[in-house]
């Protein structure tokens, strides 16, 4: 296989909006190229793998190798590379794209071009990929291929003749598409005899085999037995296996410059094989790594706590296992007066947080509470010292603070000109600072804003999507810390600070947030045997107050001989309910109230903060 000359290699990905037929097309490729025989072809082969990957039982097929004898009689090696699809993972997307020379831009003939397609198409163009526009689902009765074609031409600035039409479902046009891929996408450049430089575009942890690293070789070659070194992390290990996906894992002798595949080394921890890093030969290393590596940095933090304190160890084990597979996840133990023992976890973004929490709950059967997510703050103290605050409850006393700085990002937003106003409005609401604006291909406008990451973390992306009817796409990068008018807001229950509810908010919004939170807690916390004041305070200044009035009636009127058992069982039920209660000072708060308040807290700051 490695006898294939570099000129006969094509590395490409498929860019498509969800449901536009990416998986079906990939399946058709597998079938048409004979990679998977038609009789073994189950529906959506690659998708099935993805589901299994989610359950952690099979290694994901990030890059499938196929062979295809094209019309010119040459047998080509086609490497189809998968890409993630959310802004939280835009860095990962860009690494995947960097492993390709071409991209198939797939659009549903009935739906036309959609925002996600646009965003990723721009990323692909910026990565210098050859783009092949394709209209899919032309067999559908509602198909309007001409319209979709026109949209594609406008988006890419291409001629209508360049757009292909296929039905991934029936297979119509698929061979022509492969022909076009072979003809239009350039072969990879690179020098097999130069020192090894291989881009890590993903890695995963397999229970039985350890870390599997997905690589695109730019220069040199990699073979079993050699010692490989990761240039950014410095990890060195023997290469135990070199292979490709076909689509199952198949070991090969070696991978050459321009090819895509996997390597397995003695490394047992994905945090040593980071996406974007460069693999080189430890014996004769490359002079420098490939450009563009970025240390995966958690941007968003949240406390995650087991609802049942007995699950603490299970939660720790589950996090450790997830971490094996997810280098960007970080966690450290945290103790909360309100929520007990748990972990403060760092994530790339909200989606990442949600994915991790969902996997913990679904795959590990844990019942969890997470605190409102927050960013890291840089706090300069009056004594000149600077501390990083990852948890609002760790914020030093206001009297010791000279300045609180918060992380900012620079967001690049692409949007049709009709929606420029909506984006400006949103950016302004979210404390965005305008940088500049350019007109791009077609009717698109590129706008750049500096926005506090905290705003981004909440729901900026979702709001952007909804206010531009899905047409805007966005990428962002951190640009450092800037001072903000920020205060720490505490919520007090019967005079005790509830650490889980402490938040760092913009000074002007503290009042609204405090009022909202106290009101909601009054509604959520069941009445106690005494009046319970609920207060929001900035430092020692109370800015909002509600009172949960004491319960005055809770009685069984009758209890005579026959009722004793029944009444005792009633009482036992009430008692069992108390196990899910947390004591905040003297106040009993049901777990559900925390969950609901934290959920509302998130919404409150999003929707009503301004």
């Amino acid at each position, binding site marked *: 296989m490695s006898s294939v000359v570099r000129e006969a290699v094509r590395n490409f990905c498929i860019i498509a909006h969800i449901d536009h037929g990416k998986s079906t097309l990939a399946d058709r490729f597998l079938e048409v190229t004979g990679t998977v025989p038609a009789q073994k072809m189950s529906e959506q082969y690659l998708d099935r793998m993805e589901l299994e990957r989610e359950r952690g039982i099979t290694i994901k097929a990030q890059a499938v190798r196929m062979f295809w004898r094209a019309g010119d009689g040459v047998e080509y090696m086609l490497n189809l590379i998968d890409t993630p699809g959310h802004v939280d993972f835009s860095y990962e997307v860009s690494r995947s794209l960097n492993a390709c020379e071409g991209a198939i831009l797939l659009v549903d003939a009935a739906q036309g071009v959609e925002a996600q397609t646009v965003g990723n198409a721009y990323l692909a163009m910026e990565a210098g990929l050859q783009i092949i526009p394709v209209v899919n689902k032309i067999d559908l009765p509602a198909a309007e291929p001409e319209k979709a074609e026109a949209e594609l031409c406008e988006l890419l600035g291409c001629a209508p003749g360049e757009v292909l039409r296929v039905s991934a479902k029936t297979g119509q046009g698929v061979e022509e598409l492969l022909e076009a891929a072979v003809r239009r996408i350039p072969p990879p450049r690179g020098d097999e005899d130069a020192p090894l430089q291989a881009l890590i575009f993903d890695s995963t942890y397999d229970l039985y085999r350890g870390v599997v690293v997905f690589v695109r070789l730019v220069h040199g070659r990699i073979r079993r037995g050699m010692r490989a070194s990761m240039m950014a992390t410095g990890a060195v290990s023997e290469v135990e296996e070199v292979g490709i996906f076909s689509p199952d894992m198949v070991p090969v002798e070696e991978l050459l410059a321009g090819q895509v595949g996997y390597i397995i080394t003695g490394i047992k921890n994905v945090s040593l094989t980071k996406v974007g890093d460069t693999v080189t030969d430890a014996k004769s290393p490359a002079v420098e790594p490939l450009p563009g590596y970025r240390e995966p940095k958690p941007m968003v933090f949240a406390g995650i706590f087991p609802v049942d304190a007995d699950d603490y160890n299970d939660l720790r084990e589950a996090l450790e296992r997830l971490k094996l597979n997810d280098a960007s996840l970080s966690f450290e133990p945290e103790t909360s007066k309100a929520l007990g023992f748990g972990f403060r976890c760092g994530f790339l973004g909200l989606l990442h947080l949600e994915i991790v929490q969902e996997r913990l709950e679904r795959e590990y059967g844990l019942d969890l509470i997470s605190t409102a997510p927050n960013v890291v703050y840089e706090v300069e103290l009056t004594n000149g010292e600077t501390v990083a605050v990852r948890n609002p409850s760790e914020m030093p006393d206001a009297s010791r603070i000279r300045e609180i700085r918060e992380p900012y990002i620079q967001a690049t937003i692409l949007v049709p000109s009709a929606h420029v106003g909506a984006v400006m409005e949103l950016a302004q609401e979210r404390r965005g600072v305008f940088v500049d604006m350019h007109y791009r291909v077609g009717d698109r406008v590129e706008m750049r804003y500096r926005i506090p990451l905290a705003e981004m973390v909440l729901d900026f992306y979702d709001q952007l999507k909804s206010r531009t009817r899905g047409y805007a796409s966005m990428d962002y990068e951190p640009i450092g810390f800037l001072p903000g008018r920020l205060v720490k807001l505490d919520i007090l229950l019967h005079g005790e600070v509830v650490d889980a509810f402490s938040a760092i908010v913009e000074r002007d919004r503290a009042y609204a947030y405090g009022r909202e939170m106290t009101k909601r807690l009054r509604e959520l916390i069941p009445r106690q045997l005494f009046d319970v004041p609920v207060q929001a305070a900035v430092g020692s200044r109370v800015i909002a107050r509600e009172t949960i009035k004491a319960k*005055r009636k*809770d009685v*069984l009127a009758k*209890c005579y*001989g026959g009722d004793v058992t029944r009444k005792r069982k009633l009482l036992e039920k009430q008692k069992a309910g108390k196990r899910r209660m947390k004591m905040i000072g003297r106040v009993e708060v049901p777990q559900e109230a925390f969950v609901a308040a934290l959920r509302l807290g998130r919404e409150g700051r999003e929707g009503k903060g301004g």
Partner: protein
Amino acid sequence: MRLYIHIPFCIRKCPYCDFVSFPSDRDKMDAYLRALTLEMRLVHRREGGGRLESVYLGGGTPSLYHPRELGQLLEEAASLWGLEEGAEVSVEVNPATWGKGEFREARWLGFNRMSVGVQSFSRRALEVLGRAHGPWESLEAVRSALSLDGVSVGLDLIYGIPGQGVGEWAETLQSALQLRPHHLSLYLLTPEPGTPLAEEVARGFLSLPGEEEVVAMYEVACRMAADHGYRHYEVSNFALPGHACRHNLAYWRREGYLGLGVAAHSFIPPRRRWSNPTDLGVYLSYLEREKLPPQRDELLTPEEAREEEAMLALRTAEGLRRSFLGEEEGGRRTLGWLEQLREEGLVWLGEDAFGLTERGMFVSNAVLSAFLSG
């Protein structure tokens, strides 16, 4: 020993009642009386027990039977166990059933405590409650009972009735207190799941007074009863000195009793409880074959027995023994918690016992469930 005899027949089913009861069919009632007599013998043979300190005929509506018929039951019990000197012998009476003569006969046959189910002196309230009697019949019945020597007379009243305000309730109370009965049971109407009342409330056809209103009714009742010299000796019970219901106190003190009849419960301290079937047909058919009906047995764990003790004792003004708390860490913590509740005016703490104040009694569920979960 103590005896409870359940009479499951009613003139009609009250819409708020979830006790086991059946329409008053004369043949069934005759068969039931025979069955009870037989059950009494069989239970006595099996359980034995000392002379009876109290007998309580409850229901349902025991007064659907003629006093003579109830007298036969009492006589049978006395011949099996023997009656303690001064034993308390209670019967529940519906005002729509017995006249003066029946009350007198009941006294003569040995009933010395009569509890009259007045429920309200408001015609409107009685209609909502679906009662078969009016205020006037209640007055007559209570007066008849009160005219008898050596009889302790109790009134049952209900508050928190749909449409009832504090004013109407105070009037009913006033009427009751003017009669000067020995005992008052004041029950907060609670829509039990599955009853027509609960359904009407759920569907919005009836609405119960709100919490503030109900709390005000409770407070008015406590105050008026106290002003008239009644002691508030249990969550819902008030009595002139010396007239607390000894039979019921025995329940709350976890003393033993045998229950006879459909759905009747029995308890032999410290841990044995059992109950009869709730189906009248099943009950009768076993006894027709001279067999005890199949009972549901329950053996309490020591922990459950402890919970019961607290749950029952804390309903009463006597309260729970201090030694219940224990000396170790948990007990000290609970004591600290009780002291906080004392500051809130919900709990009293004595040398040997502690308990709930009147305000505390009205939130006893909340106090108890917190107390028992430590």
